[in-house]
């Protein structure tokens, strides 16, 4: 039953992406300054939103774990963090492609790119931390503590880097300026399939993490006999 739901969600996501792509590529006009490549924004921005959703859910799951000490919350935290990290990497790569085409450079210390890179580093650190702890309850506890620190740091990072960039202006891909309402709508419209994908990937990872936990326990029990 659960599997069917996941497959159905995948198909729905795929269908929505195709539907959106047809609109993005065929219907929406080119943007005034940026030409054709600006269309990458419809994946670039929702990917960032998905990444932050992941980090928020991870922080909430972490608090829930520390309060309830139920390892299910830990499994949820690592699942959404991993998926969130993937989306942040998608955001970075699409950003880099965009920059390469618009400005001819692969990287620039643009405020948004830089902040997202720092967030990616933070959550990559989270995953590294998990690898360094053997015992499941301790691993869950430590990762939960770090996840909370990381999430509280995220807005401070964004604000400080934004402030830093206003002092030393660098090339910026897209200004904060207003956007055609049709484009704005499309960003949200394209977020839906990405969210579906987010949910599916997290569910699969969550299931895998729970299975691993069970195998771990069985293995310990077998060794004790």
């Amino acid at each position, binding site marked *: 039953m659960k599997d069917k739901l996941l497959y159905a969600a995948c198909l729905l996501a795929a269908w929505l992406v195709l539907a959106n792509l047809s609109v993005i590529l065929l219907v929406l006009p080119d943007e005034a300054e940026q030409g054709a490549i600006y269309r990458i924004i419809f994946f670039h921005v929702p990917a960032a939103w998905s990444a932050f959703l992941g980090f928020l859910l991870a922080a909430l799951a972490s608090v829930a774990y520390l309060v309830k000490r139920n390892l299910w919350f830990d499994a949820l935290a690592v699942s959404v963090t991993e998926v969130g990290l993937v989306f942040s990497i998608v955001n970075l790569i699409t950003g880099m492609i965009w920059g390469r085409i618009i400005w001819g450079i692969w990287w620039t210390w643009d405020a948004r790119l830089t902040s997202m890179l720092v967030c990616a*580093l933070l959550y990559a650190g989270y995953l590294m931390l998990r690898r360094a702890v053997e015992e499941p309850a301790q691993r869950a506890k*430590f990762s939960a*503590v770090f996840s*909370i620190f*990381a999430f509280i740091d995220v807005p*401070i990072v964004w604000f400080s880097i934004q402030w830093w960039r206003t002092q030393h202006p660098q090339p910026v891909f897209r200004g904060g300026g207003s956007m055609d309402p049709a484009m704005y709508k499309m960003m949200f419209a394209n977020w839906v399939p990405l969210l579906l994908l987010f949910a599916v990937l997290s569910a699969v990872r969550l299931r895998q993490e729970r299975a691993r936990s069970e195998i771990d326990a069985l293995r310990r029990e077998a060794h004790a006999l």
Partner: protein
Amino acid sequence: MSFFRHAFQIAAKDLRAELRTKEALNASLSFALVILLLFSFAFDPTAEQTREISGGLLWLVFAFAGALILNRSFARELTNDCLDALVASPVSGAALFTGKCLANMALLVAVELICLPVFGIFYNVRWVHRFWPLLLTLILGTWGITVVGTVFSALTVNLRLRELMLPTLVYPLLIPALMAAIQLTTGLLAGQPLAAELTNWLKLLIGFDIIFTALALGLVETVLMG
């Protein structure tokens, strides 16, 4: 209040131990001085360039040197299972943490105050006339590094690859504080008054310190208790 008494007892113990062996202090100070000298040698910056990079260079040096001190902080309790004796004692996790922060802060600020004149000499930077605002920046910035570094020193103390995990986890978290400290230092050394733009960075640094001190105090007991 026993909280402060315990914190001071722990801080005094750590400082006495460190001053006796001087392991972390020597490692930290030599590392910092070597980097400062190597950098001057390798890049031979002009006066203009130096003015632009002064904050960044100093704070990167302080952050790296700080990791050596912070690593030792809880690691020194591992020999003979001393950490168990501390956790089982009436000292609260928050008091233990605060005591270690105070000790680490003292050590790191000492290293920084030695680096500052060395920097001044080898890079031809005048800093004495801005000493008091610089000291304020040093203290606020170092407190940020210390608070985050000490709580993660507690967290990573029993992990494999502790020396790798601590910087990996702590540096990204510290980016806002380091950035603020860097901007303040560069600005102050370039002669800017502590007003307007610089005060915004100062506020950011103070805000960071308050938020993360509160967070660390709240979570450290959880980290220390098995």
